[in-house]
């Protein structure tokens, strides 16, 4: 006898089940989650689940003075915070009509490229760890720490620097700093062949990364993919060259590309970008001593600075892709609206969800790390 309100429960077939990648999982990047449905070990559905890091950056920025926001923006992307400072500063400068001195622009490039190197080293480590290559993870994190040492000397902060401010930079370089940067670049150039032996040319890694999470150029363009992930599909687009900002138009560098569009191609593009960043930094080290002058233009009282009414949409090339801020001023002492267009919103949500479907469980973490998304940027 069954009760009148009895309803049979429909169980899914025994070979289908759900698995949560995150928010506490070694295979997820940051406090983020990917909920997958599996048939056997093949992913049939994937749903990105963010929000674990939501601090309301965009709304918070509307409540703080223009200058105060400099302490907030680097926190939007922990591994690569410098582009956040720079793009916000560029926007405020455009709205306020500020002319940034030449020396400050060169210092910003120095800061940006060091940050790119640190972010790529971190990514190499994280990506390697998803395939069980923990040695490369320790190498990457250790070598990144040498870059953080330089940040500490430069700004006083290792992770969040608040070095770039509207109008220029906070302070000039300490004595002997450029020589120390040069030593670090020499060290990284010596280390790169070791990284090649251990990771980039490792037969097992190549076996695993080739063909994993493959994007075509058409898919990449229609899904809003930018940065190294786009260049790994064969499209040579980089904001530094195609819409130059600061002094990038005075520097010589190549835009590395690959054509396969898979996890291996994305990793190789980042490796080549690291070499290009070293090349850029060498030029900065050579030219910076000859550029004297102030490091900041005169600013109004930051506590009573009413930025003229207007809109600005500056963009820079971060290590993750194209980073833009949409800033609206109504002529007040704080922004009316700030929108962060970070590359990770696309890479960690729509791209990751689509690329995960049809892959096997072994490839989910590698696909995510090869896209190099930054979860706090999704939860902005």
């Amino acid at each position, binding site marked *: 006898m069954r009760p009148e309100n009895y309803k049979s429960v429909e169980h899914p077939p025994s070979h289908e*089940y*759900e*698995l949560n990648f995150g928010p506490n*999982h*070694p*295979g997820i990047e940051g406090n983020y989650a990917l909920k997958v449905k599996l048939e056997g*070990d093949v992913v049939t559905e994937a749903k990105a689940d963010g929000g674990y890091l939501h601090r309301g950056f965009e709304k918070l920025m509307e409540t703080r003075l223009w200058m105060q926001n400099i302490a907030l923006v680097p926190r939007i992307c922990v591994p690569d915070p410098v582009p956040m400072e720079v793009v916000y500063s560029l926007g405020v400068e455009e709205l306020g009509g500020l002319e940034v001195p030449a020396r400050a622009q060169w210092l910003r490039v120095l800061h940006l490229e060091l940050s790119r190197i640190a972010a790529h080293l971190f990514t190499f480590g994280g990506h*390697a*760890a*998803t*395939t*069980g*290559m*923990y*040695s490369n993870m*320790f*190498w990457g994190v*250790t070598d990144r720490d040498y870059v953080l040492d330089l940040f500490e000397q430069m700004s006083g902060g290792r992770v969040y620097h608040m070095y770039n401010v509207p109008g220029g930079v906070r302070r000039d370089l300490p004595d002997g700093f450029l020589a120390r940067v040069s030593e670090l670049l020499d060290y990284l150039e010596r280390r790169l062949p070791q990284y090649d032996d*251990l990771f980039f040319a*490792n037969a*097992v*890694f190549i*076996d*695993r990364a080739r063909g994993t999470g493959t994007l075509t150029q058409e898919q990449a363009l229609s899904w809003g993919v930018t940065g190294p992930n786009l260049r790994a599909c064969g499209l040579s687009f980089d904001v530094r060259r195609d819409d130059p900002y600061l002094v990038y138009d005075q520097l010589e560098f190549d835009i590395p590309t690959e054509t396969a569009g898979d996890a291996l191609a994305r990793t190789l593009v980042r490796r080549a970008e690291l070499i290009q960043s070293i090349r850029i930094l060498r030029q900065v080290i050579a030219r910076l001593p000859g550029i004297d002058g102030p490091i900041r233009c005169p600013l109004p009282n930051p506590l009573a600075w009413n930025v003229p009414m207007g809109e600005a949409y500056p963009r820079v090339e971060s290590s993750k892709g194209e980073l833009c801020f949409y800033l609206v001023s109504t002529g007040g002492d704080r922004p009316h609206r700030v929108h962060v267009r970070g590359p990770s919103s696309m890479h960690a949500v729509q791209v990751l969800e689509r690329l995960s479907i049809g892959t*096997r*469980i*072994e490839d*989910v*973490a*590698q696909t995510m790390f090869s896209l190099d998304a930054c979860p706090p940027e999704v939860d902005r």
Partner: protein
Amino acid sequence: MEWYTLLIEFTLMPLVAFVVGLAMVLMMRRLRARIERRVGPPLLQPLYDVIKLYSKKTQISHGALHDLGIMMVIGGYIAAEVFLPVPGMMGMAREGDLITLIYLMMVPSLGLALGVGQCANPNGSIGISRALTSMLAYDVPFIIVVAGAIMVYGTSNLPTIIEMQQAGGVAAWGISVMPLLAIAGLISTHAMLAKEPFEVYVAPAEIATGPMVEMSGKYLGALFVMQCFQIYTVSVIFVTLFLGGGENWLFFLLKIFAVAAISSSVTVIFPRYKTDQVIRWLWKWPTGIALLGLAMVMMK
């Protein structure tokens, strides 16, 4: 053999295996740390780990079969240790042989499958299915290696195998007589340890450490102890079959630590294969090398 001698050996052999296994774990962790540019853990860290885990209070249990499965994990190896001859102690080695040993070495994997199956955690279940799949993969070359060794020595009795090698010196060691089988044996024993590139059933980034995902406290401690026994056991088997066993404790320890060091070095420089790649690779290379080695042995 007097009953009390046997009793002492039954107690001492697993105990020695555990202590030496702890030292081997420490050596592997220190070696790994050096290659990874870290300092590594202090001397007594593996012991601290075991004590800490066993001193934890168990809050939940997944049932009697889960507990029984974990007991099988440890029990299988403890039983295997008394069949593994070491300098000065034979235990049951003369009564048992290689076949008994191989059988006993499968018990921990089956115990793990039984225990983890009770947890109903999908990560654990996937891990176990991967563990049993990779067991199928590495057992094929390993059985061929064992068959070749039995053909060469004319016996499967381990003390006799050691005596024959030690009587003839280095030239009579298995590694000199059947080098191809030794290579295949080294690869398959490394695969038994489930270290990279064969670390498919732990795979933290894929299945959140698989069988260990529902294990904490004493259960995790049991798996840690299992790891000590496992490293010791596979190293001793390789030394017994191919490196002349232990003439004395010094040489014995040197040999088994060298085998573990080779395994550890391989682990540090490779990522992990996918499960299908593990099967393909193990059935292709070590199995091919083992078959070639077997053919050479048969032609002699």
